[in-house]
């Protein structure tokens, strides 16, 4: 969403005096830092900004932002955001949530805020685990995950969060990670500039209960061949030195070796963030076994972005229209109604 700007500030100006209470090494620290610096870069005013979260480790976030903030109840942040934006479209609103908070208990509010398209930036910290309650599996944990509540492995088929969000007609969908601050910042800035609900899924390492869940994407050794960085208008390339690409064979994405197979870049799938069908296909690059031969890499970046009117704009339009046709409400007339009589 677009936001009011102010005098130059630095990331530090967005920090509070409260001790940050995440475990040492937690991925949340990096995300906090990037958010603070993006707010500084974008010149967002602290007094016009509200961070709203649910419950979870990640949901402590608002306490560390020198803005207005609510640490609400588990899963319900989208509801609070909807109410706040309905009455205060002038504010910059950010929502912080975890994979349990937004996809387990809060799944319904999430899909409803996406379809209504309130103007808010949603940062979904996905660590594929319940951190705050000490290590139960979450709706994004892969099947077979051993956790406190699944000592023999989880038997749930996990959500594909971005596929779900597109199914709910989201207007901005992106994926980032805690350990790639640069891309994270650029996505956050884009989210901030999108008018409507922007959903950014951020892979976040919980080094205490699910350490390394995303190492295959974040660590040097495996990152090149398992990640695919999406750039609007650019071909899908990845691998060490970007030597691999993805081509479409009808509806089937196939991996090609740019050097060995001699495929040209412009024969590759060119990323178009405005194409919903292609975005849907990209969300399906979701093979659970990233170590499998020929597994599709996991995409990061902006999958999809489109313009659709926001709920609050439509709401304000409707009020304006009502005033135009009926005139500003007159309370005394309203109280009197249409039929009155006198008793003397």
């Amino acid at each position, binding site marked *: 969403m677009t936001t009011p700007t102010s005098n130059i500030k630095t990331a530090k100006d967005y920090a509070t005096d409260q001790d940050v209470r995440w475990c040492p090494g937690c991925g949340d620290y990096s995300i906090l830092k990037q958010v603070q610096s993006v707010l500084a870069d974008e010149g967002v005013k602290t*007094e016009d900004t509200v961070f709203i979260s649910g419950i979870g480790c990640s949901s402590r976030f608002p306490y560390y932002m020198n803005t207005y903030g609510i640490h609400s109840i588990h899963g319900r942040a989208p*509801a609070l955001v909807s109410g706040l934006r309905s009455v205060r479209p002038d504010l910059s609103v950010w929502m912080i949530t975890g994979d349990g908070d937004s996809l387990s208990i809060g799944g319904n509010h999430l899909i409803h805020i996406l379809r209504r398209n309130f103007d808010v930036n949603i940062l979904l910290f996905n660590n594929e685990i319940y951190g705050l309650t000490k290590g139960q599996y979450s709706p994004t944990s892969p099947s077979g995950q051993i956790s406190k509540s699944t000592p023999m492995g989880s038997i749930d088929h996990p959500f594909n969060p971005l596929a779900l969000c597109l199914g709910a007609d989201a207007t901005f969908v992106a994926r980032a990670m805690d350990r790639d601050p640069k891309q994270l910042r650029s996505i956050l800035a884009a989210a901030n500039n999108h008018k409507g609900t922007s959903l950014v899924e951020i892979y976040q390492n919980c080094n205490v209960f699910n350490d390394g869940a995303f190492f295959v994407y974040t660590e040097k050794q495996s990152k090149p061949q398992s990640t695919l960085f999406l750039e609007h208008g650019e071909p899908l390339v990845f691998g060490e030195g970007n030597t691999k690409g993805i081509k479409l064979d009808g509806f089937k994405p196939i991996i090609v070796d740019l050097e060995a197979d001699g495929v040209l870049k412009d024969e590759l799938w060119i990323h178009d963030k405005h194409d919903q069908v292609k975005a849907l296909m990209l969300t399906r690059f979701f093979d659970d076994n990233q170590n499998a031969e020929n597994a599709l890499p996991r995409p990061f970046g902006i999958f999809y972005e489109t313009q659709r009117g926001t709920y609050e704009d439509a709401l304000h339009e409707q009020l304006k229209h009502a005033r135009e046709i009926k005139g*500003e409400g007159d309370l005394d007339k*309203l*109280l009197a109604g249409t039929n009155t009589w006198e008793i003397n």
Partner: protein
Amino acid sequence: MEKTLELKKEVTILFAGDSGDGIQLTGNQFTNTNALFGNDVSTFPNFPAEIRAPQGTVAGVSGFQLNFGSLDLFSPGDMADVLVVMNAAALKANIGNLKTGGTIIANSSGFDKKNLRLAGYGDENPLQARSLDKYRVHEIDVTKLTRSALVDSGLGTKEIDRSKNMFVLGFLYWMYSRSLETTIKFIQNKFKGKQHLIDANVKVLKAGYHYGDTSETFTSRYDVKPADLPKGTYRNVMGNQATALGIVAAAHRSNMQLLYASYPITPASDILHELARHKNFGVKTFQAEDEIAAAGAAIGASFGGALAVTASSGPGIALKTEAIGLAVMLELPMVIVNVQRGGPSTGLPTKTEQSDLFQALYGRNGEAQVVVISAHSPSHCFDAVYEACRIAVEHMTPVIFLSDGYMANGSEPWAFPKSSDLKPIKPKFAKPLENVEEKYLPYLRDEKLVREWAIPGTKTLEHRVGGLEKEKDTGNVSYDPENHEHMVKTRAAKIAKIADYIPQQTLAAGEMDGDVLVLGWGSTYGAIKTAVNELIAEGYKVAHAHLTYINPMPNNIEEVLKSFKKIIIPELNDAQMVNIIRSKFLLPAIPYNKIQGLPFTIQEIKAKVLEILNA
């Protein structure tokens, strides 16, 4: 033919028919006409649970009871003087509510074989049976008469039959010497642009009126003179409507935006429908995906500085309790409307009950007191919900406002206020700090123990709130043991202190120091007040007190209670308020309960009080 005119003080008419028969509309029209004429009126609609249950069955009967008179009325009447039935099922469902000697006006074509069978009457037409000997039965073939009135209208039979109710209405206007004017205006408005429908309906209405004039069977007409109500300008109002108006008025008087966030549920939805029509007052309605979201949205809006209201009925309130707990912790204003219905669970959705009082007072985890306020009649919904908004905003607290299905759908004349006469509502918005080095303390309190409302957009007041226990003054998260006790006690004390800012308890009828006090709350007001007034007239030392402020109670409540020898508490539940009074004051208050989805009758209350008096 010469007809006589009889004067009546008070008449109770019960209209009944299939839900498709337009019973509610007929009842409402008759009510409006009488109200405009100057009678006091009190109504009680009684819907079937089905949208449109199978025609002709008892389950599908819709009823509308109306009491109008030249006296002050507080209830829609116990038993009807006149029962208007459109078919056999309607008779079957309602005959028990007709006074001995009362009049039955029956649509005879609603008593054909099929209708008799559907109503479960077997072969014999009850209109001809001995069992109705104790009533005056008038049969009118409304269907046939309506059809002949419209034979040239060009309308189809289905459409024609839909205006049967106008015939009945016209006939009753004749019978009670009322003018057709209000209803004709209504018809013109309703069918604006469809002249053929206007003509047809007016024609049938008049046909009904003339039928009274010309028919040989009806020799008496009645008149009910205007009531001696206090001077003023009146309108008729239904409870849910008054609630909606009260909310708009509170937003207007406090100069705040209103967000009404709600999820539909019977019998609360009409408040949403009413409010959605007033967007030109800046009213924002938000139909949320569920009750939790509605409560959450209200909290979000409240944080943003708006008047935030959410409403539901019992099952939906159950879902809101976690969020209400959050609002308690955040100390943000918010009004939660509960239009109570029959429980538990889905229960009896279209029937009335007072069984969510415990839920309002105690239905949250942890020590989480909220203010509880209850209305006692359709028009009182306006005052009470306005008060709920005022207290929420001025004392920074969630307030639960209790209504119920009976008053929500009932109506009565209302000497509505001028907007300028409404008590002002003053939100305590925090001002920017002057010294920027200072740290803002969002949980600092004033003498009422109330914190300020620091809304986003205000420079220097950036702060964070949340559901974890908070440190005194700073509002930071605190796990300190003494701080927790302090905060729990302080939140409770803040609510208790509101007693200093509300009126003292008065008596609705009778005098202090009597033999029996009937203590009521909610929509039992009318029945209790009438019963007590009658007993006083009969020489008994009884009185009636009615609680609007349930938590906290007025400061003098104990004094009032203790000035009576006995206390009886009638409730439409299995004894809730009585438990609170007993525990608070260790007084042996006597419960009197009815759990039938129906209001008390005046007779029931009288009989019970007499029993206690004579015990």
